[in-house]
Each structure stands twice: as C-alpha cells, then as structure tokens.
C-alpha cells in the first residue's frame, strides 16, 4: 500500500509557496496597508498622552509623532521631539496570515482574512506606539520626564512593551489567529499521528 503524504508536508509546501506572492502583494500595497495602523496608533497616543501629543504625519510608510516635548538639539538650540517609525515593520503578519490560510486551504477566507486583518490592527499599533515611546522615555528620558512623568517602572514597562511589539507580536498574533480558526487542522495532524502510532501493531495481527 502506498504511504499517504503527510498533511504537514503539504501544508508547509503550500504556505511556503504562497508566502512570496502574499509578501509581494502586501509590499506593493504598503502605503495603503499602513494607513489604518497609523490612524489607530495616533488615536492610542492621543488617548493615553493628551498632555503632550499633538498629532502625527504619515509619509509613505513612515509615521512621525508630533509632540510638545522639547529637547536640546545638536545646534545648541531647543527642538521639538518628533520620533519617526517605519509602520510596515510591524505589519508583515498580514501576508503571513494569508499564506497560512491558503496553505491549509481554509474555508471562508473571504470573512476570516478581513476579520483577522482588523484584529491585527491593535497589535500593530502597539508596536508603533512603543517604538515612539522608546526615544521619548529612554533616549531623551532626562529631558522629557518633567512633562511625561514616566518613572523607572514605566520605562521598564515601555522597554518590555517595545520588545514584545517588535520581536514577538507581529508574527505571533497572526499565528494564534490562524491556530484558532484552523484548529481542526491541528486535530487532523494529531489524528494522523495517532493512526501512524497504531499501524505497526495492526499489521502484526
């Protein structure tokens, strides 16, 4: 009897092959992809720090936070602190999610993908916000503390939030979303393993 191909192998191959076009499409549409993230990141910053956040400026994929914080400039004069972030750095989970759904031949992609894309936004905005907060709270902390009132505990939390938002959340959240919607695939994998585990004994009978 011919051995059936593993469901994991097929899934990996399809996901791997879909990842390149998904990334290419996402990168082509990058200026549009970052817009909702930029909007949400500004909304978060305005909500949490109304005292010193003035607004944002989006230029392509780069989002600048306009603040009322003042720091000394290299020229010797005082300057407004306006940290800039590449929003796309926090958004690559979307093409990964698309490739994962296509890799598992997910049903209902038309509603799952938009729903997950919307669900990713707060986490992507998280990354952008904490990337702004690092220069404000850490690099220029000595100049901004009198306005932001960040204490050492806050600075540590900002550091943790930034590391999570940069290193873990962009890929982890899409993975967890995929796992939730396609949990039947994990069950299929486990069943495949269980059947293989009982095969040799059956053949000896």
């Amino acid at each position, binding site marked *: 009897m011919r051995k059936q191909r593993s469901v994991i192998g097929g*899934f*990996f191959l399809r996901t791997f092959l879909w990842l390149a076009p998904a990334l290419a499409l996402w990168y082509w549409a990058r200026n549009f992809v970052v817009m909702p993230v930029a909007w949400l990141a500004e909304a978060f910053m305005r909500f949490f720090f109304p005292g010193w956040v003035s607004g944002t400026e989006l230029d392509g994929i780069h989002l600048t936070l306009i603040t009322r914080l003042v720091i000394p400039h290299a020229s010797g004069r005082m300057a407004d602190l306006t940290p800039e972030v590449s929003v796309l750095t926090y958004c*690559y989970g979307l093409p990964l999610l698309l490739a994962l759904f296509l890799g598992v031949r997910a049903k209902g992609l038309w509603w799952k993908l938009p729903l997950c894309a919307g669900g990713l936004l707060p986490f992507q905005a998280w990354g952008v916000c904490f990337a702004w907060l690092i220069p404000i709270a850490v690099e220029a902390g000595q100049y901004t503390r009198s306005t932001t009132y960040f204490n050492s505990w806050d600075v540590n939390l900002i550091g*943790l939030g930034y590391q999570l938002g940069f*290193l873990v959340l962009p890929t982890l959240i899409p993975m967890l979303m995929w796992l939730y919607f396609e949990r039947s695939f994990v069950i299929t*994998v486990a069943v495949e*393993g*269980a059947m293989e*585990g009982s095969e040799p004994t059956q053949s000896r009978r």
Partner: protein
Amino acid sequence: MARFFIVFIVVLVLLFAAELTHPVQDAVVVPWTIFLAKMSAAILVFFDGTVISYGKVLQHSVSGLGVSIEAGCNGIEAALILTAAVLAYPAAWPMRLVGIVLGFIAIQAANVLRVITLFYLVEYSEPMFKFAHLYLWQALIMLDVLIVWLLWVRQVARHEARVEVGRAQAA
C-alpha cells in the same frame, strides 16, 4: 483550546520577561549570539575564506561589509515561542523535553541559514537585504516554529497511540 492559549500566553510572557533581564542577557543571550556568529563564520569559511567573526559581527574581511546579529535575529525569541507552545500542549514531560531540545536545534538551523543569506544579501543589494531582514525571514522563522510544533504534536499523538496499543495488548 482556551487552556492552551492561556497557558501559552502566560508562559511566553514570563520567558520573554526573563530573557530581557540583565543576568539572562549576560549569561545566555549574548554568549549564544556570539556563538551563532562564530558558527555561521565556521560554515562560511568552507566556501569563502575571507569571512571572519568577532563578537556578534559576521564580516567579509576584504570588503568590510557584514552583519551584526542583534536581538530578534538570534532565534532566541522563536525558541521561546516554541517552548511556550510545547509546554501549553498536553503531553508527557519527556516528550516536552524532546520537543524543546530538538525544536531549538531546528530553529537555530534555520536561523543560521537566515544569518548566512542576510550576510550575502547585504553585499548584493541593500533594499533586498532590508526586505529579507525585516519581513521575509521573520515570517519564515515563525513558519519554521509552527511546522516544528506541528511535527511535535504529531509525534506526541503517535507516541501516545503506541503506548495505548501496548497497554491494550498487554491486557
């Protein structure tokens, strides 16, 4: 499923917070990153004798171009995610230990490939290097984590089925 997600998130945040502390950085993360640079250089020397490594840097001794392996590029975070996923899934402790150890090796093998490809891309094309570094390899490493975890889940089910069949035969 809810239990898996809760345990996974709690374990991951704990592991990640521990990883960021100075003692763990000094004792594990930095030495591992330096070892990774040395290992990548040792592999590359077979094909390209001008590759050197010092600290976290992998460099071409002729052109002077190279890459510095920073946080997020040493595979530690990916290994932590796999560890949390293995610990959150219901399995016997020996199986979990096997999953964590072999998974770490599989992730680091893919990570060495990432470091080597990025090392050559930085010489070839800056935009391609940035794209591969910031987006493509990040996604591929996470895909590697998922595949390793799925293979382990299948192995756990296979092992448990064998144990069950063995018990049934003994009875």
